[in-house]
C-alpha cells in the first residue's frame, strides 16, 4: 500500500504496465523529458528510454492516427492528449477509425488503444482547457469511455483499459490530480470497465455522478439534514453504462439526481435520466433531476465557478427532489 494522489497513481500504473508489457509505449506532446504538462509521465522516459516514451510533433490527429497504426501492428500505444480541448483535431481519427476498425473488418483488425486525456474545469486554466466532452465519445459506437475519480479506481481502471482489446478513452479529472491522496495498492489489479461504484448507501435519494463533481456531491450530502439518507454512485465508466446498479438504487430510493460538468443538453445526464424512467418508471416518485453545466461555452476562469456545479446547486436539487 502507498498513499498516492491521482497523478501518482496513474504514473505508477503506467510504470507497472510498461514494465510488464514491452508492447506498451507512451506518445504525445511533452510526455518525454518534460514528463507531461501535469507531470503524469514524469521519469518514465528516463526509465524506459526515448523509444517507449515519445515526444511527438504537435498534431493530435497525428498522435491518434499513428497510434492506430501502432495498435494494428501489434503494439499497445497509450497516446496522451494534453488537454480535452485538444481532442478536437483527433476527433475524426478516434470516431471514424479507431472506433470502427474491428467492426468494419469483422474482427480481423482490432485496435487496442488507450487515450489518456486530462479533463474538466476548476483549475483556473486558460481557454479550452476546462471542457467535458465525454458524451461526444459515449455517443460514438466502438469506443469505451472511462472516467475515474479516485487514485485507486484510476489505477485499476487504467490497467483494465490498457489490457482491453478495444479503444478506450481514459479521462483524468485534472481538478482531482493533486486534490487528495488515498491508499493505493501497489499490486497489479484491474477494475472491470463498465461497473459503477456505490460510494455511499442510502434509501431516500440516489445521486449519480462522475469526475470532480463527486466532491461537490459529498459536500452537498454533508450539508443535507441528518435524517436524509442519500445513496451516492460514482459512474466511473460512461460507456458502457452500468444502468443495473443505478436502476437497483433508484428502485429503492424512488428519487434521483444526475450531476455532471458537461452542458445539460445532450449530456450523459439525459441518458441516465431516460434509462432510469425506462427501467424504474413505476418506482419514480419525482422526476429525475439534472444538475449539470449550462448550455454555454465554458467561461474563462473568472466565471468558471459560476458555471461548474457546486454543493449549493446540488443541495437545492436534493431538497426540491425530496419535497416533490
Amino acid at each position, binding site marked *: 500500500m502507498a498513499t498516492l494522489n491521482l497523478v501518482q497513481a496513474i504514473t505508477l500504473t503506467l510504470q507497472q504496465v510498461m514494465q510488464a508489457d514491452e508492447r506498451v509505449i507512451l506518445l504525445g506532446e511533452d510526455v518525454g523529458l518534460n514528463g507531461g504538462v501535469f507531470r503524469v509521465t514524469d521519469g518514465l522516459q528516463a526509465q524506459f528510454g526515448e523509444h517507449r516514451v515519445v515526444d511527438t510533433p504537435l498534431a493530435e490527429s497525428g498522435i491518434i492516427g499513428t497510434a492506430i497504426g501502432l495498435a*494494428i501492428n501489434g503494439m499497445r500505444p497509450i497516446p496522451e492528449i494534453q488537454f480535452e480541448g485538444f481532442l478536437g483535431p483527433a476527433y475524426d481519427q478516434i470516431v471514424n477509425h479507431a472506433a470502427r476498425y474491428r467492426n468494419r473488418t*469483422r474482427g480481423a483488425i*482490432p485496435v487496442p488503444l488507450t487515450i489518456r486525456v486530462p479533463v474538466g474545469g476548476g483549475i483556473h486554466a486558460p481557454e479550452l482547457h476546462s471542457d467535458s466532452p465525454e458524451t461526444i465519445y459515449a455517443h460514438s459506437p466502438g469506443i469505451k469511455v472511462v472516467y475515474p475519480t479516485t487514485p485507486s479506481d484510476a489505477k485499476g481502471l487504467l490497467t483494465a483499459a490498457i489490457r482491453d482489446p478495444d479503444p478506450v478513452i481514459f479521462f483524468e479529472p485534472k481538478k482531482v490530480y493533486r486534490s487528495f491522496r488515498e491508499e493505493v495498492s501497489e499490486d497489479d489489479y484491474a477494475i472491470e470497465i*463498465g461497473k459503477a461504484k456505490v460510494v455511499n448507501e442510502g434509501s431516500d435519494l440516489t445521486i449519480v455522478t462522475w469526475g470532480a463533481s463527486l466532491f461537490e456531491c459529498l459536500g452537498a450530502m454533508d450539508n443535507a439534514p441528518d435524517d436524509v439518507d442519500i445513496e451516492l454512485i460514482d459512474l466511473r465508466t460512461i460507456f*458502457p453504462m452500468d444502468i443495473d446498479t443505478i436502476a437497483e438504487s433508484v428502485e429503492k430510493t424512488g428519487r434521483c439526481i444526475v450531476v455532471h460538468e458537461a452542458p445539460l443538453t445532450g449530456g450523459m445526464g439525459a441518458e441516465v435520466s431516460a434509462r432510469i424512467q425506462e427501467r424504474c418508471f413505476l418506482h419514480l416518485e419525482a422526476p429525475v433531476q439534472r444538475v449539470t453545466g449550462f448550455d454555454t461555452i465554458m467561461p474563462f476562469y473568472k466565471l468558471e465557478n459560476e458555471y461548474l456545479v457546486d454543493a449549493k446547486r446540488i443541495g437545492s436539487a436534493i431538497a426540491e427532489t425530496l419535497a416533490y
Partner: protein
Amino acid sequence: MPKTTAYQATIEHISILDEHANFDADLGKGVMTDEQALHLYERMVNCRELDEVAFKLQRSGRMGTYPQNKGQEAAAVGVALALQKGKDWIVPSYRENAALFMHGLPMHYILMYWMGDERGSKMPEGVNVTPLSVPIGTHMLHATGIAWAEKLRGTDGVAATFFGDGATSEGDFHEAMNFASTLKVPTVFIGQNNGWAISVPRSKQMNSETLCQKALAYGMPTVRVDGNDIYAVHYAAKEAVARARAGEGPTFIECVTYRLGDHTTADDARRYRDEEEVEAWRNRDPILRVRKYLTAKGSWDDKRDEALKAKAKKIVAEVVDAAINVTPPETTDFFDDMYASLPEDLRRQRETMRTSSLGQDPSQVGLNAQAASVEGR
C-alpha cells in the same frame, strides 16, 4: 552579410518505358526481368477485366457504387512487386486493387466490399493489407504508425500507402508525412496523381505544379515518375523500399497517371472534363505499352495475349460468382464485432433487435395497467 541561401532542392523525374513503348536502356537496365514484367502485365489485365465487369454489375443493379482503377494499374503493380508479401504492409485507398491482389487479398473481397458487405474487409490471416479507405487522406497516418511499430520492434517490414492528388490536401496527409519523416520510420508514400479529385482538377486542388514538391516540406526524399510506366514505378519503389528497410526512413513517390473512367459509377466525368484529354491518356495506357514493348522484343505475342485475356475473363467470372453467391450476412452480424466482448446492453439490443425498453423487456408491458387495477381494488 546580405542575402544568402537558406534552402535549395532539386527533384528528379523518372521515365523508362514511355507512352510510345520506347525503353530507356540505361535506366531500365536490371529494373525487372521480362518474366516479372509479364507477371505485372497479367496482373494489370486481370484488374482491368475486373473493372469492366464490376461496372456492368453496378449498372445492372447487382452492386453499389464502384470506383474503377482503369488506367492506374501500373503504380499498383510496380509498387507491389517491390514489397514482400506477408511481411510488408499495404495501406490502400481504393485505386490500387491489383496491389492488394498481389499481396493475397482474394479478388472477390473487393466486390463484396462494394456490394456493402464488411466481410470484404475481413483480411485473411497473413494478408498485411488494411481495408479500402473511404475517408480521403486519413489512412496514411496508419501506415506511418504501422511502420513505426516495425522500427520499435526492430523488425524490417515496410508499410506502403497509396492515395490520390486530392488526398494530399487533407491535414492528415501533412501529419502522416511529418510524423514519418521526423520519426524516421519505414513508410513509402505513393501519391497517385491522376489530375482529378472527382470534378476538381489539380489546378483548383493546389497551386503546386507537382505532388513531389510537397515532400520537401518534411525533408523527405522524393521522386516523380511516369505512373503509367511499370518500370519507372518499380525503379523508384525498389529504391524507396530498400532505403526504408535499411532504416533510412520514408520516401514519397509521385506517380503521374490518369483515371480513364468516371470517378465512380455514381459519377459522370463528361460533366467536367474534355474527351480530348481522356483520349490523349488512353494512348498512354500502362497496359498497352507493356504489351507493345514485350511483343516487339519477342518476349510476347498475340496468341499468348489472347490466351491471357481469355484466362482473365474466366478468373473474373469466378470472382463474380464467389462474390454474388456468398452466404447473406446474418441480421445481427453488425453487433458481433463491435467489441471483443459485447456489453450487456448491446447484447440486449442484439437479442431483441429493439432499442425501446418495453421492446427489450416485454414483461414490462401492461405493468401500469396492473398497477392501476391493483390501486383500483
